[in-house]
């Protein structure tokens, strides 16, 4: 439903991951929420392909930390990914999680579909880093395909995801493996989280290891700041600068929505 002449909101990001399985996803979400707080984008749908309440609950923790209008968190109910991970446990340590049962979550495919319906044409990027279960279900949802065709600018596949669901309409970008040096080291980042020492990403960094893949992070940069970052030729120095600035930053108080120049 378009309202011609109306205000165009920030670029919408649908984020779908086996959330909690790796540091890249946590870094990507931290970056995404940081840019959302600056009104450079809007996290319009968050979903996990893991049938894991901690994974879904972690999304909610991030939403509470960064403010803004919260969205229902989608969680697949497919029997996959039920086991927790050291990264997930570290991220959740000391957090107050309100997701206590599957009823506190939404069906991912319906949730993503609903998020698309509220966006202008071509104003959405989907970043998917895990199994394609949720996007597969979305594609086969009654009348969802026209929404995907009109609203989604690109589907970014990062991390373990390399193949879009069969029949996926529109542009698909398989994010190449970016040099791990893209990410600033933990020593550079952790002090910046002094505003919240229990920040999930900061806690996960301590157990996650020094090096990790950064496909999801690169996808967020490319989707939100396409003029500054290209996946084909990533400006590593500039990316590190942005990541050092945005990742640990305390979110600024929410401003009226606006789309600053990129």
């Amino acid at each position, binding site marked *: *439903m378009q309202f011609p002449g109306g205000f165009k909101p920030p670029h919408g990001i649908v984020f779908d991951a086996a959330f909690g399985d790796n540091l890249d996803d946590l870094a990507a979400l931290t970056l995404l929420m940081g840019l959302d707080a600056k009104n450079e984008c809007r996290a319009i749908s968050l979903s996990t392909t893991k049938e894991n309440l901690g994974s879904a609950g972690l999304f909610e923790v991030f939403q509470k930390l960064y403010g803004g209008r919260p969205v229902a968190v989608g969680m697949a109910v497919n029997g996959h990914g039920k086991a927790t991970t050291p990264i997930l446990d570290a991220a959740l340590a000391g957090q107050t999680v309100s997701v206590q049962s599957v009823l506190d979550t939404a*069906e991912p495919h319906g949730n993503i579909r609903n998020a698309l319906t509220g966006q202008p044409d071509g104003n959405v990027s989907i970043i998917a880093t895990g199994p394609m279960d949720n996007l597969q279900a979305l594609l086969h949802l009654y009348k969802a395909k026209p929404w995907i065709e009109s609203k989604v600018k690109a589907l970014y596949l990062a991390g373990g995801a390399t193949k879009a669901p069969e029949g996926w309409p529109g542009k698909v970008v398989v994010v190449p493996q970016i040099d791990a040096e893209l990410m600033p080291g933990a020593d550079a980042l952790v002090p910046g989280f002094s505003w919240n020492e229990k920040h999930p990403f900061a806690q996960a960094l301590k157990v996650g290891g020094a090096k990790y893949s950064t496909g999801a992070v690169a996808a967020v940069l490319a989707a939100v700041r396409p003029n500054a970052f290209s996946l084909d030729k990533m400006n590593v120095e500039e990316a590190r600068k942005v990541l050092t600035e945005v990742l640990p930053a305390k979110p600024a108080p929410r401003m009226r929505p606006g789309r600053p120049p990129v």
Partner: protein
Amino acid sequence: MITRKALSRRAVLRGIGATIALPALDAMAPAMQSSQLPGGKPVRMAFVYVPNGIDMSHWTPEKAGPITSLPRILKPLEPFQKDISILSNLTHNTGRALLDGAGDHGRCCGSYLTGVQPRKSAVDIQCGVSMDQLVANEIGKKTRFASLEVGLEDARQAGDCDSGYSCAYTNNLAWRSETQPLPPVLDPRMLFERLFGQNADLSPEARTRQAKYRKSILDYVRTDTQRLEGKLGPTDRRKLDEYLSSIREIEMQLERAEKDTRRIDPMMEKPYGIPADFAEHFKLMTDMITVAFQADLTRVVTFLVTREGSSRPYREIGIPDGHHPLTHHMNKPDLMEKVTQINTYHATQFGGWLEKMKSIQEDGASLLDNSMIVYGAGLSDGNKHTHEDLPTLIAGRAGGAIKPGLRRVYRRETPMSNLFLSMMDIMGVHAENFGDSTGRIAGLDLA
């Protein structure tokens, strides 16, 4: 006509200038058409819609599972605790703005039974076929009226009623097609005549005679009634007596209402046959719906209690403020209290209807048992205009398809359309999809 064989399902009582349909009588078996479910009684479906959202803090029971106590707004339904199901987390995404800006009232009512977002226009309206009409299209041929649409508040059908949304959206629940709403009947006399008095048979002269001598329409069919009674067993005689008594009671209510109307200040816009008292109007309409269900004149009803966005005051309970403005209370306690009182008042009237439905027996079950009546609103929080976790209650067992007495909580953002798909199944109408459904509702029939 009445014969010595099993009474025809289509038998009527005839007299000079009048015809009255009969309720379902045992004497009609095996002429009775089989219904959707074992037991032989058809399932009736109704929707009762209240506007402007509901104070959810006083609507939602504390816990999921068996209902052990009811919150304040639903307290009037305590006698029916075991007959109702309270559903949580049902959502109409199509009621949200979705880039169309203001107009939640127009959208929420337009989308309530259609599952689509109505077009934002005051003139070029487009909505969707409502779920009740999909059912009526399939099963309506089995009854005299495919569906009935009733309401209590007079409201225009054209113009801009909410930020660019046509009044057609706020003032109608049922939609026959994408562009054809089915306006509710507001006048109880009109509804009565539609149901029980065939206008073509009752000439203006006959009407005048009736009014002048205060003759009941039942008097016209007295001879036929006596002939029929002689052929019925005791159970059927009782049923017939109850049924005819209901008609007579309604006639008397109408006569009283007419007198009240004449005493009303001429400032009132339409003083014809509509009671000034809200509760009385509500009761009149639901009494007639009950008889219509009982006589199988229809199996599908929508009841728009007041139009969406209604600013009706409720002086009868000491609230002179308009309903809609009150719901934008900005969390002021005194205003919130008034909203809760209005919500409770509505629920009280609904409870009166349930009592009536429960009192009527059909083959060892009540009419309520053989029905499913959805009571709810298109908004949850009227102050914030939220479209998720819509207040939704189903009264009745739908002939055994629903196990009531429970609060059922669904996953967040579960489409209301999923519920409607399941209800269509119960009515014997199968559809793959409806509105923005993602599937069928789970667990309605946990037995």
